[in-house]
């Protein structure tokens, strides 16, 4: 990754471009290119060696004109406030593009949970909530798990919140385990949501799913569920790539007549790493990780890292590729975007394609607030309806204004938020 890369700069550049296209008033531009609120605070934790260590915590609420802010809490040793600001802004656009009544936020703690005991992590979670309790909650800002945080962390945070407020507020935090305020379908939501948009894109292009093949970068939760649903719809994935912890490199596993998801899952670790030797035994061809983008397929699904499609490798995309669906956040650089556009490939931008997760988090919050939990069918059908509606809105706008789908998605999202700010009299 470029050392000078600043995610917040990128986010603001993107916004500025869209603001120009929308011809937003200056007040709207000024409001939306900066967070509404930022919280920076210290969290003292008594460690297992009985010494107190001070951790640095953040919460950025970019905009809540559409509804309570929503966003994850990251535990990361290299966390920066600019990364959190950018991610909060992108959350605003993501919630807006799928038309859910939530704003955007993001938070984090600079820490490496690998070096913390369970007790220390619990104290860290409770400490974060003690600092933020007045400024988060079901009607203000609803945190969720993110990088290196889990449902367990969310439960500790919720418990602390409920201790402070002396009641039960399951809608204060999402990403909770099923049975303790969590929603069915949450695990599948991002991957399934991605494929709902892929299905709709193929319908628009009048291509049958059964007539397509896909190459997938990544084999984590999102990729696995995306592959599962894509297979069910009749598509064939011929390659998946993943990070190989032992060699410190990414590898790709290919079967030209279609990978078998269940057999690969059996030889995959919790981080999505596939056992190379066992894969070879199962008849998979092992290729360098970068090979995922060069496959002669109709669909590419980057579902692992940011900046995976660059100016350097975009030219190696096969002429057969008709569709790129961005499962990961920010997998395509601005230069690569231009090449994709020139090649005439249909692109489903990240903040639309992977919005299934936040949409299901919204459903979890609704269920938690009413303390009435839906069947998986209810959740997934509503997810499908939301994702499909969002896709159609973006696609229709792109066609109508003859613009790139990423631009159409941004225009739709920013316009909704800007209008909400204006309607509230903020701008």
């Amino acid at each position: 990754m470029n050392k000078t890369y600043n995610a917040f700069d990128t986010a603001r550049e993107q916004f500025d471009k869209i603001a120009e296209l929308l011809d937003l008033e200056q007040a709207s531009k000024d409001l939306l290119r900066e967070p509404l609120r930022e919280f920076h605070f210290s969290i003292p934790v008594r460690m297992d060696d009985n010494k107190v260590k001070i951790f640095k915590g953040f919460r950025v609420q970019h905009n809540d004109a559409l509804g309570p802010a929503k966003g994850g809490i990251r535990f990361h040793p290299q966390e920066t406030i600019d990364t959190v600001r950018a991610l909060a802004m992108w959350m605003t656009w993501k919630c807006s593009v799928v038309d859910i009544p939530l704003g955007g936020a993001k938070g984090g703690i600079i820490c490496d949970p690998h070096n913390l005991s369970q007790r220390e992590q619990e104290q860290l979670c409770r400490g974060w909530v003690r600092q933020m309790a007045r400024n988060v909650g079901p009607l203000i800002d609803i945190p969720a798990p993110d990088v290196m945080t889990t449902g367990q962390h969310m439960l500790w945070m919720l418990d602390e919140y409920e201790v402070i407020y002396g009641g039960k507020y399951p809608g204060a935090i999402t990403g909770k385990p099923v049975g303790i305020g969590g929603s069915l379908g949450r695990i599948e939501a991002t991957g399934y949501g991605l494929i709902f948009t892929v299905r709709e894109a193929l319908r628009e292009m009048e291509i049958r799913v059964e007539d397509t093949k896909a190459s997938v970068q990544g084999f984590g939760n999102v990729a696995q569920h995306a592959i599962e649903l894509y297979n069910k719809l009749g598509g064939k994935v011929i390659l998946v790539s993943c990070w190989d912890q032992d060699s410190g490199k990414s590898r790709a596993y290919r079967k030209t007549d279609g990978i078998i998801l269940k057999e690969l899952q059996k030889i995959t670790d919790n981080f999505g790493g596939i056992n190379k030797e066992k894969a070879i035994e199962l008849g998979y061809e092992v290729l360098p990780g970068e090979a995922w983008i060069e496959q002669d397929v109709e669909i590419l699904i980057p579902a692992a890292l940011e900046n995976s499609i660059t100016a350097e490798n975009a030219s190696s995309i096969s002429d057969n590729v008709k569709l790129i669906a961005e499962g990961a956040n920010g997998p395509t650089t601005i230069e690569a975007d231009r090449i994709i556009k020139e090649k005439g490939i249909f692109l489903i931008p990240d903040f639309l394609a992977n919005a299934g997760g936040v949409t299901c988090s919204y459903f979890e919050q609704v269920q938690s607030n009413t303390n009435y939990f839906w069947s998986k069918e209810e959740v997934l059908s509503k997810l499908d309806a939301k994702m499909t509606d969002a896709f159609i809105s973006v696609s229709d706008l792109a066609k109508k204004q003859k613009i790139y789908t990423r631009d159409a998605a941004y225009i739709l999202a920013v316009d909704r938020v800007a209008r909400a700010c204006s309607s509230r009299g903020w701008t």
Partner: protein
Amino acid sequence: MKNIKEFSRKTFLQDSFTYLGSGSFGGKAEGLKLLHEISENPIFDKYPDFEVSIPKTIVITTSYFDEFMEQNNLYPVALSEKDDKLISYQFQKASLPPGILGDLRIIASKTTPLAIRSSSLLEDSAETPMAGIYATKMIPGNQPDPGTRFLKLTEAIKLIYASTFFSAPKISMTATGNDIYSEKMAVIIQDVAGLQHNRRFYPDISGVARSFNYYPTGHSASEDGVISLALGLGKFIVDGGNPWPDSPAAPSAPPPYNSINDMIKNTQVFCWAVNMNILREYNPISENEYLIKVSLKEAEYDNSLKYSVSTYDPYSDRLEPGISISGKGPRVITFAPILQNGELPLNNILIDLMTVSKEKIKSQLEIEFAVTISKDPAIKNKLSMLQLRPLNISEEKVTINFSMIKKENIILKSVNSMGNGTNNNIKDIVFINPDDFNFKDSGKIAREIETINKQMIHENKKYILIGFGRWGSSDPWLGIPVNWSMISASGVIVEASLHGRPVDMSQGSHFFHNITNLKIPYICIDDFSEDFLNWNWINSHCSNTNSLVKRITLDNHLKIMIDGKIHTGVIYR
């Protein structure tokens, strides 16, 4: 193929026939495809006041059935011996495939009644008919909450899936030499044909048109066909009710009843409708959850009897077509305003429909339909075609030479026989002694027959079944309420008259369709004709006196001959 395309959320309100998934349409939906094409025939341009079409149809193909079964690991329970209710509950607890849920939610955004119908691979084929043995469910679609409508739709689909593995189809599959594991179910989601009248929804007329009449009467010929007509939903006919029989070649021919009193007693006195009112009992595993019976009085209040009734005038002892000016007198469902007075060209439309359909499929056939009479002059009346099935007519040439058969060897002889062909492979007779029979026991008799039928399947044997009243009627007071799976091993069915009571044959039920397509002879013994059944001989071979239903097994095979040309049948030893 006429304009059948993949389901689209953008256009589904306009699309008339769409599908979901990549599997098979199943037999019933394949029939609908044909009807969809047939509806384009210019012959119907002759009837400018009528639209001839199929209701808006969405087919969930069998690929989703496969996925549903696999993802919920349902085969162990589906193939088990568990009863239908337990299988239904297990299916209700399972989740439908994620790929279809969003589309179903969109479909549930409609607020009109929907019929959720089975369409299995074997259903409605000529060789292995499975008519009427799978579930159909009507849902009102009028709940204000779209989430509730979605839930009801998913419950209905799961019920149809579960019905693939109910005991009746399992038995039928075994009896016809098919493997239940190979059966797959597509589901048809269709607008219910009809209109809302107050808090109920039903068509003005439903019917079954057959291009071949097994029981032609008077001057009519078998090839003229026959049409059964009823008020309300077609459930009345397929359940073995007593619809009005119309001979399309002579619609105004005298009715097939001995007297007006006989007609009043034996014609339709209620109809079925979709209940648009508050649900009486939540029961997702019942086909009838949203169905209600509507009396003729209620139907008249709904203004639905204009074309279907005659009014009895006690002073003249006559039936007047329509509702009399005075408004007084019992109403009798005769469809006289249409058939006698020709107020609607329904008879002619159905003749044309059968003609063009026969040309299309190159076979005799039956078509289920519903008619909605528009109350708005700007909107056409509608004839909705609901189902098409080929009829399997035997071409074997059979000549019965009674001079070659010793009279004392004849067990049965009838000039009211349906079917055609010979059979020399049956040794068993299952029967009810007329002296033991009472309609109040008909439910118990049905269960006893089912038990014997299972035993016959186990022994891999066929049998002659002899009973009274209308076989397959859902009304135990009209006949023995068996469904086809309960008698699936029968090789010959005999409907005997009881104590001089005239026989009253049904031609409209799914039960009847299965019998005819499996070429099972159906013989009626009418005491008022030259028919003959040798009860003395049968009883002399029976030692079992405890049960209502008796079985005798003979040493030698019986000889069975049916001459379809002259509707004559004989069974002799």
